[in-house]
């Protein structure tokens, strides 16, 4: 087992470098929730099924190392707001050892 360091910039702009486990079958959205870096009820609303866009993040590095977007994720981002070219749904990003040093910013919560 091993942890990776991930830097997450919260919605207030504060950066948090945290340890994320690679052996717990967790995704980035779950890591953000486990560290309570976004208010409950404003992130991961659908539970991680790529069916809402509340866990949208901007990927600041390593973009090429992430898994390709599924059709569901593409579709969901299509309906979301504040979408940029580096937008991803964090629930679709499993934490793996490759991601040591990943930096992301949580997208604003939408109305």
């Amino acid at each position, binding site marked *: 087992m091993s942890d990776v360091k991930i830097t997450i910039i919260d919605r207030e702009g504060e950066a948090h470098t945290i340890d994320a486990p690679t052996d717990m079958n967790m995704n980035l959205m779950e890591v953000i929730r486990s560290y309570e870096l976004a208010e*409950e*009820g404003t992130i991961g*609303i659908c539970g991680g099924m790529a069916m809402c866009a509340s866990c949208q993040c901007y990927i600041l590095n390593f973009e090429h190392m992430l898994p390709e977007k599924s059709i569901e994720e593409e579709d969901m981002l*299509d*309906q979301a707001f504040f979408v940029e070219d580096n937008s991803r749904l964090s629930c679709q990003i499993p934490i793996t050892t490759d991601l040591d040093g990943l930096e992301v910013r949580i997208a604003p919560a939408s109305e």
Partner: protein
Amino acid sequence: MIKTDMLIIGAGPTGLFAVFEAGLLKMKCHLIDALPQPGGQCSEIYPKKPIYDIPGFPEVLAGDLVDNLMEQIKPFEPGFTLGERAETIEKQDDDSFIVTTNKGTKHHAPVVVIAGGLGSFEPRKPPIKGIQDYEDKGVSYIIRDPEVYRDKRVVIAGGGDSALDWSIFLADVAKEVSLVHRRKDFRGALDSVEKVEELSKIGKINLITDAEVVDLKGEGELDSVLIRHKDEAREEEVKETDHFIPLFGLSPKLGPIANWGLEIEKNAIKVDNAYDYQTNVPGIYAIGDVNTYKGKLKLILCGFHEAAIMCQSAYQRINPDKKYVMKYTTVSGVSGFDGSKKEAKREVVKSIN
């Protein structure tokens, strides 16, 4: 006025199962839900997805779970107010409650149970500055009466089914229909996408892709929208219109319940989990995903458990002088309000002479 013993707000799995537990205690239930069908998220968001942690079901589709729950509670004849959102609650002199929906339907009950999950599903509003100022003055997020748009100019934004379907429908009603979408790809039924393409070719829908509505203009009433193209070489486009209808799907909001004087924490309602899942207002309970307490898990199975505990307390509230002990359905069977009776087969005792 609809009268019942237990008024349940939210017809998701937890709210539905509460009807069963209440029925065993001879309490009648009525449910309110903002969605047009029962089942909550299970029906609205993921009916075809499997759930693996319902005890006794190694695998069950969310939609099937809802169907099973509806079957299970049928003998208890629950009432439904669907497609309406619980808006206000008024405590009466006798400590009962009147809950009124956004459409004015009134419900009267001694016990109110909030099983509202993540809240009611509301249209998502695009983050365009000042959009609130134009609501009902040219901007709407739902189409209630298509006749409103007859011979008017309409701009629809979005790329999902509802944006496609309404563009097609309004192409025959409105004077001019424009569909603005951020990409060239549309998600939605293939039929609808092809139909929009066809209508666009014959000039009945003005299709504007790779573009977004970024601003709204008009004195008091909307008179135009500003469209920005992805291709930065193209200039921003002012499009005159009578109506702007952004259709970006639904997202859950705690909504008016947040103003009912209940203690709220982390977008959820605080309850007494040492006992009966009652809120800080006696007579109002909260069960399932909508509540919170130390160690809360937002699981359907936890909602079921909370429903059973809550019903015992609600029974005591409604019948303060009655003594009661919990009974097993295997022992006592299930007697419905419809006269039906389910029970285990009795062993036949017959002597052989």
